[in-house]
């Protein structure tokens, strides 16, 4: 898959992983692992990017005597997911056109 396209999809996947409530890095990876193969090193720049774009906020909370960072989705982040659905409908429409044309030529 095109790197830029995958990057955009992964951003939305991470937002989806924290939509139901605040989550932490390792939990996000575990939640996504069933559908997407993502490593710690891949997640790190995504989280930073999403934070810079104000799609999520970061807070620290104590856990077993150490600090753990929790990521919470913002209103802008939820809007990003909704935009993704609109983009997706357009993509599916393009896919169906390409598929139809390809099948016709066969």
């Amino acid at each position: 898959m095109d790197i830029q396209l995958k990057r955009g999809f992964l951003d939305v996947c991470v937002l989806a992983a924290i939509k139901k409530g605040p989550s932490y890095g390792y939990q996000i990876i575990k939640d996504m692992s069933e559908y997407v193969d993502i490593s710690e090193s891949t997640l790190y720049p995504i989280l930073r990017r999403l934070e810079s774009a104000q799609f999520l906020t970061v807070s620290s909370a104590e856990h077993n005597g150490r600090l753990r960072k929790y990521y919470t989705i913002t209103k802008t982040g939820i809007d990003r997911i909704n935009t993704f659905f609109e983009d997706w409908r357009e993509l599916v429409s393009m896919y169906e056109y390409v598929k139809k044309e390809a099948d016709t030529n066969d």
Partner: protein
Amino acid sequence: MTKAEFLAELRRGIIGLPDEDINRSLEYYSEMIDDRIEDGTSEEEAVAAVGAVGDNVAHILADIPLSHIVKEKIKPKRALRAWEIALIIVCFPVWFTVMIAIISSALAVLAVLWGAVVLIYALTISFCALSLACIAQTFINVFTGYYIGAALFFGIGLGSAGLTIILSILSVHITRAVVGLFKNILLGCKKRFAGNGGKND
């Protein structure tokens, strides 16, 4: 590798970044390793699962602009003394010339690389135009009854079309190679500036 060793090596790889970025990265990877350990894996396995230090450094640097890293690198770590400021002013003709020379060389390398890409595309377009012109000339010669000329232009047109196909494939490969090389050079520069030196642990 233990968690402490991993974090120390990671720190060495990004030591040139602003303190905030270094601490943030170390906290992130430390938390990830701790969470894996808490999940039941051993320390060594947790560190191995997080991946090689070099790959993690590359991911950390990927989204940070080179200008940001260079700016941090050349920023004085303490207030300059009077004699240091005087030395910078006196040596201005030397360091400024060297800096201009380095920037010019870098730009020249970039110009050569992208020049090669532009050249191959220009060649592809030229041969494509030549093949189309020759095919058109072939038809004109056939209609005017000049069959030897028609055969000649058809041959040149066919050869040009073949070259166009070969050059198109080459163009794609060369563009990919140049983009890949450019990315590697950029990452290499980032690693060079963000890595060891400039700061003490």
